């Protein structure tokens, strides 16, 4: 018997120990680098133990659950390690392990160095609360650890509290998180009243016991509440504000796994708490997924702040995940459990894949920030010569996130395509047209993502350095490189060995739809199929092997013909102009210009050019160029909302007269009203 419970508890203890050590170290006011290293190693130990626990559940079927009563009514510390929880736990522990290793070298050079022990305290609090978020199985307990996670993440985001940008991003995150929790609370209570219990085990299929109107309300509240955490459009505005300003190891965790807590919540609600839903529910999720994916990548393209660009890509990938979830919901409504399993696997697989490559990319961006001190791509360039390992790992992450074969991003996007294609045959109604159109927009999203990462990698790492800081950049320490290496190898393994990994999803789909899909989705020779070999198949492992094998052809050509050809290094031709400098290079802004023009209706770009000249405008001395795009959601959605709230607040102020008698009257009137309400009910 696999000691799931023991490993899980030991992992939590390791995190808790690191928290205690962090607090003690902070209180003693003696900063020593060995203490920080020890704390990071403790988190690493915790992550490895949790990895063992999750792997035991997923690969060994060693599920576990237990309940500790709290003495407080309704609240119990119930913990349940079921397959869905273990799947997210697996992603979390993988990321936690790499981030712990990364932090060994990173903390001493980042904003965290001012009080590294306190930083480790919050980091471990975040890991601990995340572990519990995925496993808590009582509504109140879940909400408590959910809030702990939000608070820990908030303090980590604003750790560099001297920067106004960080404070502002943190506040926005905190507000959105509050709003989300509010919706969650109401949604959960609606479900709990139907089930008559706050335990998750009792909530299974509770959505069915509510009246259609209440069931729909609870569904929407929970979707939006979890969506605010996941960063669906239009609740996404905190991601690009908060993720880039956090220390990079925290950005990696935020984009990699904290937003996945929202996805976990959705999976729990959609496929555990609700048995079947009407078509509109799945359609809402699918449409929000498509919109988030497309707008996320379009805004990412306009960014030249490396970390903000990555944050926008998180919105895009959450959208792709929701395309899978939305299709799964629709297929379940149409009565096609087989297809629903395929779509759910697509969504969950993309969740794991995105966690891995986004963490890798943020750690890479952190390395760049560490080496150059800037996130602005227009000041970078030429880093591939100065930081060859970081560049290689970032390139692997870039290929994976662009969904290119044979890495893991391709596999989950391929499954998403197949799910969408299969959707066309799932229903005879007009709804079927939504699936191929969503597929086409997914194709657009993926192609734009590739364009964006050509820009991100090309401008940051290739050609000539655009600033002195980039010129002087040095490779990052070994610990940071090895963390990236682990994640890069994971991208490769999850891509090539996807067929071996699929059985992990069997217990999850069995619980949700009563179907173990992995044997239909894989064939011998590491081939992935869309239900059957006939309906379509792909083999990333064979593609990789063939790409290497076919490499013999061009090599042979060069050896046979090009034997005598010489190979010299010289200045770039550059159309015959001598003296190529960094000023000649294409910039990130210029790279995305065609798309800014094509999607001008969305971006509403504004630009201002001022030229200073003495004699003639054709011989300018200096040119000042400014360009910006309109933040559509901020201007057209959040600003009116903010004005509305302020307007109501100003009116409400009249209630507050500062007189205790008046307040007592309010209390009294409320009491009477409640009593009347109670008597009537």
């Amino acid at each position, binding site marked *: 018997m696999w000691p799931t419970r023991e490993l899980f508890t030991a992992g939590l203890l390791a995190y808790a120990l690191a928290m205690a050590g962090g607090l003690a170290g902070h209180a003693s006011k003696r900063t020593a680098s060995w203490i920080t290293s020890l704390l990071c190693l403790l988190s690493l130990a915790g992550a490895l133990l949790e990895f063992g626990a999750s792997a035991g559940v997923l690969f060994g079927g060693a599920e576990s659950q237990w309940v500790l009563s709290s003495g407080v009514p309704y609240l119990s510390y119930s913990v349940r390690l079921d397959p869905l929880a273990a799947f997210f736990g697996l992603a979390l522990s993988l990321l936690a392990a790499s981030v712990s290793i990364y932090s060994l070298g990173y903390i001493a050079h980042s904003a965290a160095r001012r009080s590294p022990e306190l930083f480790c305290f919050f980091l471990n609090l975040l890991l601990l609360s995340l572990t519990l978020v995925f496993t808590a199985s009582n509504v109140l307990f879940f909400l408590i650890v959910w809030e702990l996670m939000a608070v820990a993440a908030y303090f980590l985001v604003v750790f560099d509290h001297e920067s106004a940008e960080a404070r502002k991003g943190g506040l926005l995150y905190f507000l959105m998180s509050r709003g989300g929790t509010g919706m969650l609370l109401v949604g959960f209570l609606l479900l709990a009243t139907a089930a008559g219990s706050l335990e998750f085990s009792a909530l299974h299929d509770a959505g069915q016991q509510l009246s259609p109107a209440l069931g729909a309300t609870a569904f929407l509240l929970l979707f939006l509440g979890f969506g605010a955490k996941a960063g669906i459009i239009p609740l996404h505005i905190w991601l690009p504000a908060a993720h880039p300003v956090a220390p990079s190891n925290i950005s990696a965790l935020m984009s990699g796994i904290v937003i996945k807590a929202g996805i976990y919540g959705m999976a729990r609600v959609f496929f555990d708490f609700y048995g079947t839903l009407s078509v509109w529910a799945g359609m809402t999720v699918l449409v929000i997924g498509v919109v988030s994916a497309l707008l996320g990548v379009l805004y990412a393209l306009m960014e030249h702040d490396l970390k903000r660009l990555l944050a926008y890509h998180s919105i895009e990938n959450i959208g792709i995940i929701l395309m899978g979830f939305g299709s799964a919901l629709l297929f379940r409504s149409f009565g096609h459990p087989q297809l629903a399993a395929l779509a759910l696997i697509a969504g969950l697989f993309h969740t794991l894949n995105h966690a891995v490559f986004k963490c890798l990319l943020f750690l890479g961006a952190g390395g760049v920030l560490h080496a150059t001190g800037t996130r602005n791509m227009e000041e970078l360039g030429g880093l*591939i*010569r100065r930081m060859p390992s970081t560049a290689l790992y970032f390139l692997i992450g870039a290929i994976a996130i662009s969904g*290119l*074969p044979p890495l893991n991003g391709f596999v989950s996007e*391929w499954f998403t*395509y197949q799910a969408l*294609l299969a959707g*066309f045959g799932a229903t005879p109604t007009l709804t079927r*047209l939504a699936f*191929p*159109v969503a*597929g*086409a*927009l997914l*194709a*657009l999203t*993926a*192609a734009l993502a*590739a*364009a964006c990462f*050509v*820009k991100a990698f*090309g401008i940051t790492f*290739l*050609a000539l350095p655009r600033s002195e800081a980039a010129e002087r950049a040095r490779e990052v320490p070994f610990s940071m490189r090895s963390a990236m290496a682990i994640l890069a190898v994971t991208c490769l393994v999850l891509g090539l060995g996807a067929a071996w990994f699929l059985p992990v999803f069997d217990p999850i789909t069995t619980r949700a739809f009563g179907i173990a899909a992995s044997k239909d989705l894989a064939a011998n020779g590491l*081939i992935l199929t*869309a239900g059957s070999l*006939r*309906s*379509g*198949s*792909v*083999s990333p492992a064979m*593609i990789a092997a*063939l*790409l290497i094998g*076919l490499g013999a*052809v*061009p090599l042979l*050509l*060069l050896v046979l*013909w*090009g034997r005598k*050809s*010489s*190979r*010299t290094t*010289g*200045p*770039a031709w*550059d*159309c015959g102009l001598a003296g*190529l400098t960094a000023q000649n*290079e*294409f910039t990130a802004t210029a*790279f*995305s210009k*065609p*798309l800014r023009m*094509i999607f001008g209706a969305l971006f509403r770009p504004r630009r201002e050019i001022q030229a200073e000249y003495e004699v003639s405008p054709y011989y300018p001395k200096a040119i000042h160029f400014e360009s910006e795009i309109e933040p559509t959601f901020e201007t057209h959605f959040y600003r009116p909302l903010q004005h509305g709230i302020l307007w109501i607040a100003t009116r409400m102020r009249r209630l507050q007269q500062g007189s205790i008698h008046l307040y007592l009257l309010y209390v009294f009137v409320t009491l009477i009203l409640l009593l009347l309400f109670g008597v009537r009910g």
Partner: protein
Amino acid sequence: MTERILALLAQIAIVLFLSPLITGFSRTLKARLQMRRGAGILQPYRDIHKLLRKGMVIPETASWIFSATPYVLFVTTLLAGLLIPTVSAQAPLSLYGGVLAVVYLLALGRFFLALGGLDTGSSFGGLGSSREMTISAIAEPALMLAIFTVALSAGSTNLSVVAQASLGQSWRFLAPQQMLAFAALFIVLIAETGRIPVDNPATHLELTMIHEAMILEYSGPYLALIEWSAAMKQLVLMTLLVNVFFPFGLSIGWSFATLLGLGLFSLKLLLLAAAVVLVETTNAKMRLFRVPELLAVAFVLSATALISTFLF
């Protein structure tokens, strides 16, 4: 087993050695239509032969990406060519990847080519990369939707299955959704292979270049590999069009009938190439920002194709 290996080798030979012929034919036909003599159908072979023996200059600003790009591009394009049925309905490797893998392998090659353009630091390289990624991105929805239409009627993304399905009913290309999807894919073909009115492969003016701007700094054997890849990519996309929509002459297995199939296949390719050349000679190159409108037309065509599957 031996038969499969022979089929694989045969297909490698077809993709490698037929592709420059199509390019040569297009150029010659275009020259004739413009009242020029042209350099001859075999000129692309001579170009590749010559370039492979020449020396090359690697820009000192470039990194290993610049040198890896020609190999990646060549290998990904060649592999894409092995996943689609050419003379036999049974492509040798179709089990390892269907039409999605073909599209994404070409995208992987393009990803590296665009990086190669940026790697030298020359402004024209970046300009080409930016435009190439933009145009391929906005061509993608039309391409995918048209492919979906075809895949949906065959019930598979495996190209061998799709080809066999259309082989069963040879006159199906007259169905409205097939004709509309073909029209959409034809526009995408022009955009993806960089032909007038989207891009002019013969231009000398760097500012108007797209594909050529990215590869300005390449020379010698690397340039040969890139030029050859461009020819192969054109062959792959054209094969996709002719064999999915007009599967006449495709043999079922690999036998002597495939030799006859090779003749018919080449004929179909030459006809399609001639159609592209006709479009090229009768149109002027568009401004870059008019290209999205053309691709929007392709998208509408494929969307209509999809809706007509629903109706018929």
